[in-house]
């Protein structure tokens, strides 16, 4: 992540906006909004913000926008005593100075009791007494500076899931306390044993150890006992089963030794084991929680409300699930339609790529059906809602996804497969040792039992249980740094086995933003882009991207549903639909959507758009082919465009015009043929496939459902992450195997020693910690290897 100081010199003679840092045309500010924000900040005496901040290019620029007012009232939680709480996701946080700025601005709101920004989760929490409607005022104060605030349900997944996180942290704290103290006391007994320590002192030491260790073991091990119990009840076994049995047995034997005044107690081993395992658990949970929270943030920021036309002609924004059947919805230009419905009044240009996979927008006639997720490219369209909530095509897809997820069954992770063999083997060894010593060697019962206990302790799968999580932590945080969010704990192992990759075309292999089709005069392109820069219309955004970094022209007005207009002394310059620019709209031309530019006294030029490959697509295909992976394209689009893309990428086999069900069948067919399938897709129609494949990936631009289902979400435009994910997964798989081999080697050495009765408590503790550290050190190599 590179950070650029906003006040740095501009070497190319370009100036940048004093507020948002985006390029501006020689002026101090890029737009009136930024100017206003700058004045507000100085008027409040917070000008120090500009000197101390660092702009983060990875974040959204701090440019005030006309925000679509969302309905805040439903998200406010009011306590019986009149205290209101509202939690909002903040978009555009650049650095610590932004946190300070937001909190300082809100501190000047007299009614607000507390405002706190959480920088890690990028959330703002507002607490105030009195009128809930004040929320609008608070949000407006922050939004005028250029931040975007999106309210979300406080009962959202993040808060619920992190109950596990803090439970693990408390368990870790207790285990650390107990391990430290018990180890200190045990050290005394080990040394005392060589210095003629009396039995009374030794017993005292054992009793103190027992008093500290037993409650700690009962409390800190809860996560393991629970998981082991759940596995056993379902007739399975996992790594937590031998861990739990080992800890419980070792503790009971040590307690019995303590009561009977025996020489050896192993409380320290049991507590240290739990401590090491909990460290692994906590780190693993943290890394994945962070990835999941980021993925969730992406979704929250995109959640949009639907504008419902009221009987009095006004618009009221409500969340899609609260729209009544038969209600009339108005979708502005560039807005996604939130419900299934029927188009009314006028024809409209709709982009259904996320729903059907068809890349090019289609002109729909009144009476045509539209589906939730469709993007309105043309003028504002009115839609009568025919299905909301559970009845939409979206909900239909969700049901297909659920069915497919159940069919996938439970993937058994590598560590659990090892545990299936390992746990019985260890317990048989311990039983054999006991019988051998007691029956064959005629040793006393207690001595035989102690030797058997030592076997259990040295084989306690500390290193084995760390072998996989240690690698996962490092791989997850490594991928996180390059914008790849690994959401599922088992995804890494499933990725390492992939041999077939199935791609969706639209939005996955190709860019969600259309590309400029034909070469045009660069000067006119720059002019058009300077008009387009102020608009959020997809075609305008495509144009701006094609032109490079063009600052918006001052004084451009957006005429809703028609285009952009700039008044110049020579006359108006217009960018928009052909009709807006005064030329015939040739409906017959299906070469793609277009924007026209008209200038006074010059011929009207048009910019045509078409689908283009995502950056890095060709390199990705080449590198995947070098690894002998089988590639395939499954698309809902027509055969022509799919064939074109497949040919551009080097003749990848493809299937076109596939319905979601047909796609699902194809994935099942591949899996039935014994292939391990990675599905990469972004559309609603890919959702079931993503759930059915062995492992799935989605770009961050994907439909919400797809992103929720996918195991991996990658940010950014490029397809390069696919290669990185597979590379890291393969190396991670290798390191996991090495770790397992290392810990099995350790057992191969220690097990015979223990069976012969040579293992004393201090040797057990040292060997166990040593093997854990060795496994962790080996995993750390993954962080340093090149990608």
């Amino acid at each position: 992540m590179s950070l650029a100081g906003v006040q740095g010199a501009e070497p190319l003679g370009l100036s940048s906006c004093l507020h948002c840092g985006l390029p501006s045309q020689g002026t101090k500010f890029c737009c009136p909004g930024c100017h206003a924000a700058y004045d507000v900040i100085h008027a409040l005496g917070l000008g120090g913000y500009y000197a101390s901040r660092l702009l983060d290019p990875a974040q959204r620029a701090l440019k005030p926008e006309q925000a679509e007012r969302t309905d805040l009232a439903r998200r406010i939680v009011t306590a019986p005593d009149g205290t209101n709480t509202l939690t909002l996701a903040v978009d555009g946080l650049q650095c610590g100075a932004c946190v300070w700025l937001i909190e300082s601005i809100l501190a000047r709101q007299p009614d607000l009791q507390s405002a706190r920004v959480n920088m890690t989760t990028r959330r703002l929490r507002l607490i105030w007494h009195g009128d809930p409607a004040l929320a609008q005022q608070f949000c407006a104060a922050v939004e005028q500076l250029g931040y975007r605030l999106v309210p979300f349900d406080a009962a959202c997944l993040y808060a619920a899931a992190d109950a596990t996180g803090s439970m693990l942290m408390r368990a870790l704290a207790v285990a650390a306390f107990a391990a430290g103290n018990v180890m200190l006391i045990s050290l005394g007994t080990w040394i005392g044993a060589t210095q003629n320590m009396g039995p009374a002192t030794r017993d005292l030491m054992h009793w103190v150890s027992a008093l500290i260790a037993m409650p700690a073991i009962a409390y800190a091990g809860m996560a393991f006992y629970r998981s082991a119990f759940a596995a056993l009840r379902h007739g399975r076994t996992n790594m937590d089963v031998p861990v739990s049995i080992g800890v419980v047995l070792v503790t009971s034997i040590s307690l019995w030794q303590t009561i009977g005044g025996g020489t050896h107690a192993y409380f320290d081993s049991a507590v240290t084991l739990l401590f090491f395992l909990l460290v692994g658990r906590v780190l693993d949970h943290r890394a994945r929680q962070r990835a999941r929270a980021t993925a969730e943030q992406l979704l929250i920021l995109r959640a949009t409300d639907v504008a419902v036309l009221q009987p009095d002609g006004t618009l009221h924004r409500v969340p899609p699930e609260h729209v009544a059947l038969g209600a009339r919805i108005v979708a502005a230009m560039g807005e996604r339609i939130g419900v299934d419905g029927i188009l009314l009044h006028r024809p409209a240009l709709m982009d259904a790529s996320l729903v059907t996979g068809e890349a090019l927008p289609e002109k729909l006639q009144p009476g045509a059906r539209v589906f939730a997720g469709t993007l309105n490219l043309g003028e504002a369209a009115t839609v009568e809602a025919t299905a909301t909530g559970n009845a939409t095509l979206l909900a239909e897809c969700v049901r297909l996804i659920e069915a497919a997820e159940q069919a996938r069954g439970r993937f058994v992770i590598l560590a659990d497969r090892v545990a299936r063999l390992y746990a019985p083997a260890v317990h048989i060894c311990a039983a054999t040792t006991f019988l051998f010593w007691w029956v064959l060697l005629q040793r006393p019962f207690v001595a035989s039992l102690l030797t058997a206990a030592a076997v259990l302790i040295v084989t306690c799968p500390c290193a084995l249980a760390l072998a996989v999580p240690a690698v996962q932590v490092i791989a997850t945080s490594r991928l996180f740094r390059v914008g790849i969010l690994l959401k599922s704990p088992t995804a890494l192992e499933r990725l390492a086995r992939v041999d077939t990759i199935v791609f969706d075309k639209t939005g996955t292999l190709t860019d969600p933003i259309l590309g400029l089709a034909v070469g045009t005069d660069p000067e006119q392109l720059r002019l058009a882009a300077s008009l387009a820069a102020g608009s959020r219309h997809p075609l305008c955004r495509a144009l701006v991207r094609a032109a490079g970094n063009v600052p918006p022209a001052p004084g451009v007005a957006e005429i809703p549903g028609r285009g952009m207009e700039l008044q110049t002394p020579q006359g108006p310059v217009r960018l928009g639909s052909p009709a807006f620019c005064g030329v015939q709209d040739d409906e017959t031309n299906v070469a793609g959507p277009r924007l026209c530019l008209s200038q006074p006294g010059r011929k009207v030029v048009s910019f045509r758009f078409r689908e283009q490959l995502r950056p890095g697509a060709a390199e990705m295909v080449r590198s995947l082919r070098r690894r002998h992976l089988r590639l395939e394209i499954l698309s809902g689009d027509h055969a022509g465009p799919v064939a074109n893309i497949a040919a551009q990428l080097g003749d990848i086999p493809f299937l076109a015009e596939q319905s979601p069900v047909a796609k699902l069948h194809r994935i099942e067919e591949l899996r039935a043929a014994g292939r391990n399938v990675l599905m990469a897709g972004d559309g609603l129609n890919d959702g079931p496939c993503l759930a059915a494949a062995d492992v799935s990936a989605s770009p961050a631009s994907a439909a919400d459902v797809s992103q929720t289902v996918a195991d991996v979400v990658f940010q950014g435009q490029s397809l390069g992450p696919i290669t990185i994910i597979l590379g890291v997964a393969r190396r991670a798989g290798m390191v996991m195997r090495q770790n397992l081999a290392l810990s099995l080697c350790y057992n191969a050495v220690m097990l015979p020693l223990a069976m012969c009765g040579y293992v004393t408590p201090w040797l057990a503790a040292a060997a166990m910690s040593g093997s854990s550290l060795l496994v962790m050190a080996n995993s750390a190599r993954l962080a340093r290897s090149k990608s």
Partner: protein
Amino acid sequence: MSSLIWLILLSVALGGGALVLFLWSLQAGQYEDPEGAARRILFDP
């Protein structure tokens, strides 16, 4: 012997005190925003 008992009690009390403090800080939400806490110190209230 009695010094030993005092020392053991002392070590357990010190460890226990640290444990209670940690659990309190966890409860008070001090680990909820490690990134923000690190940056906040750079700005005067």
